[in-house]
């Protein structure tokens, strides 16, 4: 007895000697506060020097219009305010935007950017307005001033979709529609990055025109893939001919893949999941080399550019959603190595030469790396990811901070600064950083709390989690779509189900479901031509993680014998 007590004392002593217990990491609260001050430094300077223009120019302390003329940075930053817990400012800005934004102006805008930043931002703010304590219209979330604004903006984009293929033009004039001499060449992402916002809009408002346009564009793009199943970089929207045949997961293509997967999830659409899976297969086959992803020729699959692009860093985050976590971590470690070398991710990084590509050495404070870190931290709780977040935060504070905001890094070699602060810095970079350091944030809600709205068919659950982020980090509440769209129908069905059951109490037979997606998935199955005998794994599912995943932290990787 005595001995064991002594042993314990001895251990106390030994433990007291151990230095660096919380090894090199600040507390989460301290990190959150640092992110907050980064955000507010940029935000307040925007309001002071640039509003109502689109963007802040942090070196000259003024503003400029970039993607249109609708206070883009403010729209984009709106939901980040709520993420940071600032409900009063959220309410103030919401009212301000309702009164000031006007989309009836003679200005040419990028269809893609306006959709993800403006429509996405407004939709998200609309869906979160209950949480921010705003006054709501009786039919909210199916109506509301911000929703009308979003719808207004989206309607101005619709003329771009009137093409032979259904794929949209890249640019549209908000007043006059598509210019007569508009080029029909659009990048892949510019075709395939609408379904989240447009489907949300359609399902909230009940007007199917948006969702149909987005679906049509997606279908056209799917049918234009090459024989080996790849899509190129730019396409002619009038005849579906590829103009740039580089296939990769970065610039020009990235969010197309993202939206296929996220649409499959948000809309519970197995068809899109099948597409995504097929793309993943060819991406892994042709593009992946040593956990890097390179650019290949779309019809042959040969490497055309051994380059890593800063934009590609979103991929590991996407992989985590479908349970490909091991592979995601390996890739993220590679990307982090580049960060450690330069304190930023150059737009293009030559993999074999291990250096940034000439003229592409800038880092406009992009969010993709940190976005992936956030998703993967949710999955693994690996402290490495917090270290990564701390690395990014430190570099942003030290390198990009100027008296009037945070400036784009023009060259990662010498950290020259450019006179620009893109709106995604406030919409995404700071948001994902904060979310990484705040695992209890409402956007990480996994059903631990929720809210409801009353409808004629009973109360409908809202804000229960499962938020789907659009490619500009604007969260979409799937429950809001459900409440405005399927809820009524399903309640009626359930009602009749019980009625039927009551009538034939003795021999109850399960009534086949009447949802359309079920049939569509069958169609796709038959196309594959081989009905699987073994226990079928649903398309809409993710594999459970191997035993070794619990030790796969702090850079430790495990090799798996693939089945």
């Amino acid at each position, binding site marked *: 007895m005595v001995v064991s007590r002594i042993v314990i004392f001895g251990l106390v002593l030994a433990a007291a*000697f151990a230095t660096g217990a919380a090894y090199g990491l600040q507390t989460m609260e301290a990190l959150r506060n640092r992110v907050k001050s980064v955000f507010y430094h940029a935000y307040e300077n925007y309001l002071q020097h640039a509003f109502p223009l689109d963007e802040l120019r942090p070196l000259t302390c003024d503003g400029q219009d970039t993607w249109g003329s609708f206070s883009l940075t403010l729209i984009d930053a709106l939901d980040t305010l709520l993420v940071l817990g600032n409900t009063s400012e959220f309410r103030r800005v919401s009212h301000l935007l309702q009164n000031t934004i006007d989309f009836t102006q003679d200005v040419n805008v990028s269809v893609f950017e306006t959709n993800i930043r403006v429509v996405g931002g407004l939709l998200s703010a609309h869906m979160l307005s209950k949480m921010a304590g705003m006054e709501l219209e009786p039919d909210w979330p199916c109506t509301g001033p911000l929703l009308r604004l979003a719808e207004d903006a989206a309607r101005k984009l619709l003329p771009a979709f009137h093409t032979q293929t259904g794929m949209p033009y890249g640019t549209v004039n908000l007043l006059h529609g598509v210019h007569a001499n508009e080029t029909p060449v659009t990048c892949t992402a510019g075709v395939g990055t609408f379904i989240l916002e447009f489907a949300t809009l359609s399902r909230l408002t009940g007007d199917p025109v948006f969702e149909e346009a987005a679906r049509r564009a997606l279908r056209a793009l799917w049918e234009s893939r090459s024989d080996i199943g790849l899509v190129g970089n730019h396409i002619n929207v009038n005849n579906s001919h590829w103009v740039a045949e580089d296939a990769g997961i970065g610039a020009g293509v990235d969010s197309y893949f993202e939206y296929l997967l996220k649409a499959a999830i948000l809309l519970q659409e197995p068809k899109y999941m099948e597409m995504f899976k097929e793309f993943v297969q060819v991406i892994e086959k042709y593009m992946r080399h040593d956990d890097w992803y390179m650019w290949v020729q779309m019809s042959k699959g040969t490497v055309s550019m051994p380059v890593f692009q800063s934009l590609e860093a979103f991929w590991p985050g996407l992989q985590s959603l479908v349970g490909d976590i091991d592979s995601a971590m390996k890739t993220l470690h590679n990307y982090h190595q580049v960060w450690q070398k330069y304190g930023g991710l150059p737009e293009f990084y030559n993999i074999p030469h291990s250096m940034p590509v000439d003229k592409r050495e800038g880092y406009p404070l992009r969010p993709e790396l940190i976005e992936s870190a956030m998703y993967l931290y949710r999955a693994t709780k690996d402290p490495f990811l917090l270290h990564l977040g701390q690395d990014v935060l430190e570099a942003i504070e030290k*390198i990009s901070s100027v008296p009037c905001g945070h400036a784009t890094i023009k060259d990662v070699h010498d950290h020259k600064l450019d006179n620009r602060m893109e709106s995604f810095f406030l919409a995404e970079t700071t948001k994902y950083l904060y979310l990484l350091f705040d695992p209890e944030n409402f956007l990480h809600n996994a059903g631990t709390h929720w809210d409801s709205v009353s409808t004629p068919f009973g109360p409908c659950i809202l804000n229960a989690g499962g938020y789907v982020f659009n490619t500009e980090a604007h969260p979409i509440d799937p429950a809001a779509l459900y409440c405005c769209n399927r809820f009524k129908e399903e309640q009626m069905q359930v009602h009749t189900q019980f009625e039927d059951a009551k009538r034939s109490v003795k021999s109850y037979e399960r009534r086949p479901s009447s949802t359309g997606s079920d049939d569509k998935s069958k169609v796709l199955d038959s196309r594959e031509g081989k009905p699987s005998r073994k226990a079928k794994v649903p398309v809409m599912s993710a594999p459970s993680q191997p035993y070794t995943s619990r030790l796969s932290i702090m850079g430790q990787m495990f090799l798996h014998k693939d089945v």
Partner: protein
Amino acid sequence: MVWAAARRMACLLGAAAVLSALLLLVCLSSCRDRDTVWPAPSPTQFFSKSSLVVDFFLGQLQEAEARLENADLTMFVFYAPWCSRSVEARPQIELVARALTGQVQVIAINCWWIRGHCRQRMSFPFFPAVQVHHRVFGPIEYRGALVASYLQQFLERMLSPLTYLPNQGEILDFLATTEHGVLGFFDFQGTPQPAGFWPFYQAALLALRKTDILESTRFGIVTARSVAAEVNLTKPGSLLIPRHGQASLLYPGDAVNMTAATVVQWMMTVHEETLMWLQPSGRKSLLLNSELGRGPALLVFLPKVPRKPKSVLQLALEEIVLTYNDCSESLKISRLTDRLLQMQQEKQQTFHRQSTPSPWKQEACCFSLAGARTKVLGPVGQSSPRTTCELCVSAGHGSPRCTLSRVPVEFLSSLMSESTSCSSAVVDVYSSRFASLYAACCERLSANDQEMGNQTSRTISGFLWNAWKAGSHRGGRKVDEIAAVKGLRCRTNRTLAFFAMDSGLHWDFAKRLGAPPDPRLKIFAAIITLHEELHHILEDVRRDTLIKFVVNYSWPHSTLRRHRRSVTPPQHASSVLELTADTFSAVVLDPDKDVLLLHYADWCGFCAILTHLFIQLATQLAASNAGIVVARINSDINDLPWEFVVDYYPTLFLFPARRKHHSVRYPADLPFSLPDLIAFILEHCSESTRQLLIGHNCSPRCLEQGWNWANMQIKLQQLQRETEALQETNLLLRRSKAILHGHLSTLSFIRQSLARKSRWLMGANAGLRLHRAQIETIIEQKHDQTKAAEQRVEALHLAAGALSVENSKLRANVRRLQHRLRAGTSRG
């Protein structure tokens, strides 16, 4: 550029010029807005001025290199000011610089500044990079943890890479406490630099460059022929790797042809596997994959404190490892393990008495010949095993420092054998012309000194004597405990490999295996078998429990149970019950309940999207009061028994009441929608539940009621949680909850009976209404009959009137006829 140039100019010009420059600037910036670019600002001091680190924040590599000659060891820290790891390392490096003042000079260089010399010449894949320059051997890269104690140990090893072993006792301690060791025997009697010594010294430095097993290799040097002979080193210049389990190995080559590289190469090929410290670097690596992947492994997490004596537990662990591998019952090993056990006991004793400062910690008995730098002293009187002597080091410019803090074992024996003479006081000397001159020496004690020495010895002796006695006393008992692992390696077919990790740096791994997140003592052990995908854990790690743990595992039918993670989810109010591995069977296998169970994972996109749907479902089902449980479990962090493990998420199961073995999986091709889920439940749930569900066909209005009911339930749950938090009010609240429940059920009972009554009343009412209607009809009929009768009377009356008129007419006619008759008869 424009800005910077303008700013610089403004500084040079006078006040008037400032104005014009600014005007120019405004013009320029407004004309060339789009091209405004700022160069990165010039760097500033990174390390604080008060620290002992020389900071070349402008990247002056040349200047830094010029200082190399100033010290034997120079540590270069290449940093980038924007790098958070450089910021983290900064205080640690300042600590080291302070601790090793005068021995190591620490120089920090900003190797990022684009115009700095360093950036132009060197390129690093990450920051900070640490290089230690040895004045003679050049740079060695440091790859270990950037923690002061680790760094300092590394530097100290570079300062004195060889451990001097003057006698048998020291060798024993050296072997017992070193995971991997090499012994070299060099005779300094004839020459200050015997053949082979230089490569041996170099090899010791070279080994420091490695991060793997060689990093923990220690190099011992023996200079006395008699001592060397005891470890089978006969020829000067020969090297030996003492191996515990197998025969020790002599370096095959000749001392003359020996090079550092060949020595290191030789060590790599023949090293023996014992306890291995795993030090994941934080970078992408396959370390655990390759080490744990080879077979079952015991992984012990304990605080590793570089530069401090080993902890009791660490000594015990090393003892267990040695004993485990001792298949041949070799004398060598038992001597080592005895020594390890003894050291554990000493430490315990030390600790026991730590309140009284132990005299021998004060290093009082250090007698050095400070001036003997170049003099090689021959041994005075052939060294006997009883020699008590202290080793002193004169480290060049510094003051003499005593490196030995422990009294050799022989000291004890000498005390015990009552020959307490401390007179023959010299062992040996080794010196080298590299680095600062190390002169180890002892001098004959003068009478005065001797007295002092004796005094010290006596204090020590009394104390140590007790320790020794206690040690040998306990020594008898230890056989019982540890005998079970003796040579176990060769007796079991579940052979273990032994690993240790510094819990100060790598506790995250322990947490992943099931250790508490933030315990008072970070000590934990696990046996991991990767290929079987399971592990066992030991939380209370002591010598005896550890032995038992190893023994239990080695049995063919191990009694150890697989550890299953069970993570308590964040508390929340929801109609969906959140399960853990611990609560799983109690809920899911409850024979009286139908249980709908969703397996999910936090990261799974397809799962998160269903959250609102399941809450909706659970709420509506709860409203029906059918007693069906809607539950979910995060199977990514909760390990379930094999039969319940799922391959993919989301997976939904229904466990029907009383037929738990007939659990049904939700069809793979069915989408998750409310009607489909309800249909699935209705089809597979138990009959009683189904009746209840159907009986409670819910209209939207009833849904509203159900909603309120569910809300009430949630409030109750919240109440329950508060109860748990406040132990004082616990009982009270629970009672009130029970009362509330009672009320609820009475209420619902009353509601039901009311409903029943009202139904009955309705029935009765309807009957009455019917009755009334009947009566009313009867009345009406009667009324009609009366009316008809009246009419008939009227008609009769009318008929009577008509008849009387007829009658009078007839009567008049008769009268007229009579009259006519009468008139006729009268005429006629």
